[in-house]
């Protein structure tokens, strides 16, 4: 419940709204958070107007109790704005600045509020500051949460994107591995490969590890398991792209892959073609010459 002073203050705020809004927008523009192609002055103004409306209404109903249901619309609105900011490439402090720049305009409004006794005005000033701080933190949290969601989604996308099984020839598949092979992702990749072996009735699968920065025992074990599983399904694996530094490290680690390996994917492909009885020959001159 708002106290009589708070209710009176809310009414004064409502009457003074345009001036507060103008001062707020001015502060936002001065802080340089508008423009730069991320958000137009118009959008910023619309958001500020809407949030100020929610704020004034909430103070009128519930005073400065930020947890009160009356603040629900302000909370949700600010959280939504912060999430959008996170997507638009704002920094956390720029995002928080949206709320914090309201502090001064609010204090100015308190200073010019007529009909509040000085003690009540001082009290309201303190409470308004605390309130702004709380909502400032809320925006940072919402921003942070959104960023984390984005990162998790991107990780998943990368995991899916970078692990295509490609068909090089009838019966020959290749799996170019790129990036860090944590166990979750490796599991998915290896299952994809095994499934593709079934789908294509492949005889040979080339696993290329050129893009894998670290081959430790966990990666090695995943490779070994995949090779063994592929073998049970009637397909042979060739591992390609073992760079010299990786080869040396594997020797020291004591890992033996016991599988045909080739320096490059091209070498592995040549082996695969030979195994399935194909050869690559230069095109006959007649074929390229005209007439």
């Amino acid at each position: 419940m708002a106290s009589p002073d708070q209710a009176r203050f809310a009414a004064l705020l409502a009457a003074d709204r345009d001036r507060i809004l103008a001062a707020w927008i001015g502060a936002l523009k001065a802080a340089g958070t508008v423009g730069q192609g991320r958000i137009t002055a118009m959008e910023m103004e619309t958001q500020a107007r809407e949030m100020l409306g929610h704020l004034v209404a909430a103070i009128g109903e519930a005073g400065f109790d930020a947890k009160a249901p009356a603040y629900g619309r302000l909370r949700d609105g600010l959280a939504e704005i912060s999430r959008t900011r996170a997507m638009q490439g704002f920094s956390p402090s720029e995002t928080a600045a949206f709320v914090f720049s309201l502090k001064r305009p609010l204090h100015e409004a308190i200073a010019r509020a007529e009909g509040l006794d000085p003690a009540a005005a001082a009290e309201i000033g303190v409470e308004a500051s605390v309130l702004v701080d709380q909502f400032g933190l809320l925006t940072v949290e919402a921003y942070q949460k959104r960023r984390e969601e984005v990162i998790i989604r991107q990780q998943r996308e990368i995991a899916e994107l970078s692990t295509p099984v490609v068909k090089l020839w009838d019966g020959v598949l290749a799996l170019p591995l790129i990036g860090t092979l944590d166990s979750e992702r490796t599991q998915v990749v290896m299952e994809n490969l095994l499934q593709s072996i079934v789908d294509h009735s492949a005889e040979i699968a080339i696993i290329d590890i050129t893009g894998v920065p670290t081959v430790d025992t966990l990666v090695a074990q995943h490779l070994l398991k995949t090779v063994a599983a592929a073998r049970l399904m009637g397909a042979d694996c060739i591992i390609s792209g073992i760079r010299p530094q990786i080869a040396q490290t594997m020797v020291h680690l004591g890992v033996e892959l016991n599988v045909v390996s080739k320096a490059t994917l091209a070498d592995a492909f040549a082996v695969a073609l030979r195994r399935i009885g194909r050869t690559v020959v230069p095109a006959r001159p007649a074929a390229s010459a005209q007439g």
Partner: protein
Amino acid sequence: MPVTSSDTMEIRTSDDIVRVRQKVRDLAVGIGLGLVDQTKIVTAASEIARNTLDYGGGGTARVEVIEEGFRRGVRVTFEDEGPGIADVTRAMQDGFTTGGGLGLGLSGAKRLSNEFSIQSAVGVGTRIMIARWKSG
């Protein structure tokens, strides 16, 4: 021994292992380790970091650049407060595993490092240090 940079990182998830690897690689590149030596110390760190997570229940990695006379190196010290290792000699043997692994992590990390030390006490935890110097 002078330490010119030191960073302590948490190991709580497998993403943390990736971060430790990246940090170790950055420092290794920074002191001018060649590609092979970089790969060795990064791989050794990856092994011990994973053990810290899987067997130690998580812990920390202190990643440092160290100096001795004119040479510089990268040192990583892993600590956990997990169950500890009852028989360290046995755990250090190639092929010994209690977790269905290859059993090559500890012994391999030792071979990949210039310096290696391990202290472990049952019920207290495990501390493992690995280091690699820039030769020449």
